[in-house]
């Protein structure tokens, strides 16, 4: 009898642990992210994928072949190794030896991956060995021939590179044997927020090993790749760089020069750098190196196609949108992608007023030339409250067969 307490304690401990683990819900991924086509042809979504984030649960990926996959539903150790970016996850499956060092080498600072036909390129900087500051003096380029599996690794010493606290690659272009790299070098103020930035372009010849670098622009503020996706870049001859004339954490009122251009177009082949005039437009690149913009004008959503310098409007189309798309509201986040001459727009939103509901992402697909609506749908999140998500949004759209 004197062992009764030990027996009871042990039983409670063992059964408690069993109940704890048994009660951990098995997540049904189809309840986490549910895409519904309300009108139009579902086949338009064949070969298309959406990447997003279910706050504060997991990154997720949706495509018409596999449905929903989320990092958090993977076995724990597999989840630890999973790429945070779903485009990288796809690349990792096909080219593990090329992608794994980028993912797992902690000495590598931010990297940029260019998926160019039969070649895969990565560009990155490494940290100094004795601290976590980035060593801007050497840019590392890796080039994989997808067909022969042959890989070239180059360490390119940069001469006369702009001084700064952080350097990021915001564009890559290759036309063998030349590789061009767009850099943004930022300097921080005493509070570690961005003060000044420099945009520069480097050109490296893989055969002659010659390298030269030219500064394009110096200004207060930040420069960003327009799509903010460093892992699924295509070998476009043009790149759009967005410019924020103030620190993103500062109020816009405190800024100076906010009337200037907010986007620039760099042409890798022509080596031209042109400010894009309409500061209210959302500029993006089509699937065949076209320059487009979207603008809200009154009730209408206008799609414009420009010439290669972005200076002349070649075509203007009013989109036949089924539900409003707002480019300027703070609580709405539209992203655009052109796939097979169709314009995909996914507009996510947060419920700023009550902060209670998870709003769906509205999805619309348009014909790029006529502006006709081809498909409308929505993406709902955590419909069965399986993970009590607070917010869901789509952060990139792509084409599976690109990988």
């Amino acid at each position, binding site marked *: 009898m004197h062992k009764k307490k030990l027996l009871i304690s042990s039983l409670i401990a063992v059964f408690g642990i069993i109940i*704890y683990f048994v*009660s951990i819900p098995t997540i049904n991924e189809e309840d986490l992210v549910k895409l519904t086509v309300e009108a139009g042809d579902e086949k338009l979504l064949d070969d298309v994928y959406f990447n997003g984030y279910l706050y504060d649960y997991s990154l997720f990926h949706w495509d018409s072949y596999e449905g929903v996959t989320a990092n958090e539903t993977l076995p724990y150790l597999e989840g*630890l190794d999973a790429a945070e970016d779903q485009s990288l996850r796809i690349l990792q499956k096909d080219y593990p030896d090329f992608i794994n060092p980028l993912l*797992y080498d902690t000495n590598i600072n931010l990297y940029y991956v260019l998926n160019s036909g039969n070649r895969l390129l990565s560009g990155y900087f490494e940290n100094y060995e004795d601290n976590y500051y980035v060593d801007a003096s050497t840019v590392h380029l890796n080039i994989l021939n997808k067909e022969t599996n042959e890989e070239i690794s180059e360490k390119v010493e940069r001469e006369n590179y702009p001084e700064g606290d952080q350097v990021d690659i915001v564009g890559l272009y290759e036309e063998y044997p030349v590789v061009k790299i767009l850099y943004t070098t930022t300097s921080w103020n005493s509070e570690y927020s961005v003060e000044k930035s420099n945009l520069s372009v480097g050109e490296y010849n893989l055969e002659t090993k010659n390298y030269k670098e030219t500064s394009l622009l110096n200004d207060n503020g930040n420069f960003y790749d327009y799509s903010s996706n460093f892992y699924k870049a295509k070998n476009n001859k043009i790149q759009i760089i967005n410019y924020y004339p103030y620190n993103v954490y500062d109020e816009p009122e405190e800024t100076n020069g906010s009337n200037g251009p907010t986007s620039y177009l760099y042409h890798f082949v022509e080596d031209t750098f042109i400010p894009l005039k309409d500061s209210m437009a959302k500029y993006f690149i089509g699937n065949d190196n076209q320059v487009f913009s979207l603008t809200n004008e009154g009730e209408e959503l206008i799609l414009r196609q420009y010439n290669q310098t972005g200076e002349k409007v070649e075509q203007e189309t009013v989109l036949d949108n089924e539900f409003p798309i707002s480019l300027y509201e703070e609580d709405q986040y539209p992203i655009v992608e052109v796939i097979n001459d169709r314009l995909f727009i996914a507009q996510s939103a947060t419920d700023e007023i*009550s902060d*209670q509901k998870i709003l769906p992402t509205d999805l619309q697909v348009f014909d790029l030339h006529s502006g006709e609506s081809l498909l409308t749908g929505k993406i709902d999140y955590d419909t069965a409250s399986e993970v009590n998500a607070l917010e869901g949004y789509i952060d990139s759209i792509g084409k599976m067969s690109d990988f």
Partner: protein
Amino acid sequence: MKKFISLLSFEMNRFLKFLVPTLLVTAVVQIFVTIFSSLKYNNELEKIIAQGEQLETIPNFSLQDITGNGIYQLSIMLIVLVFVFYSFFIWYREWLGKNTFIYRLLMLPTNRTYLLLTKSLVFLIGGLLAFSFQFGLYFIELKIAEWLVMDGHYTLLNIHNVQPLYDLVQSLLFPTTLFQFISRYSFAFAALMSLFVGIIIERSFGLKGLIIGASYFIGFFVLYALLDSLLYSASFILRPSQEAIIMMVYQFLVIGISTFISHLLLKNKIKI
């Protein structure tokens, strides 16, 4: 085996005298916070209704509003503190208590290593008991809050989501995968075993032992941090899963080595 179970039962009875009151205090505090917070939320809603404002602007109430409360979190910390306190007390009471009980314990006609094993096993059972108790409390608190909060303003959370986002203490204590559970609790157990070795070294070698014992105990954490840092910055590339496995292997190695050292000292060196 019978002697081992008897000794374990004896140690468990002694530990429960500390643990059960602590768990009861924790339960009282947490249930009080649950009732208080729920009623406070209702009062706020009533005020807003009286002022004619829109209720839609008020976020729903959930158990995260309770578990994020400072007093609530202190009640969980109280359990952790009792475990820390008792890990010293469980040994020193034998030497420094009224009857120098260690003399009788060491003279028992049984393997002296049982002393170490029963004392450490008591923490394991006690730890799992406290874990299960707190988990059960979550269930009761979910029901109380659901019952008290005004209809339509309560979000019923899954019992594994009751911790506020990014809450370190609770997310450390309540991992949702078996690997994380074993990893975190084996870290705590390895720390406990290092402390036990430290205490036994101190009891074996006096003042010199105090320095060696303290170094052994601190060394566990220092080596852990060094190994973690080494794996992170190593010239060879490791996957995060490989790093996690290596860290867990280190913890189990420390448990094994500590048990072996303690066994040797208890057998050959310990002073009464």
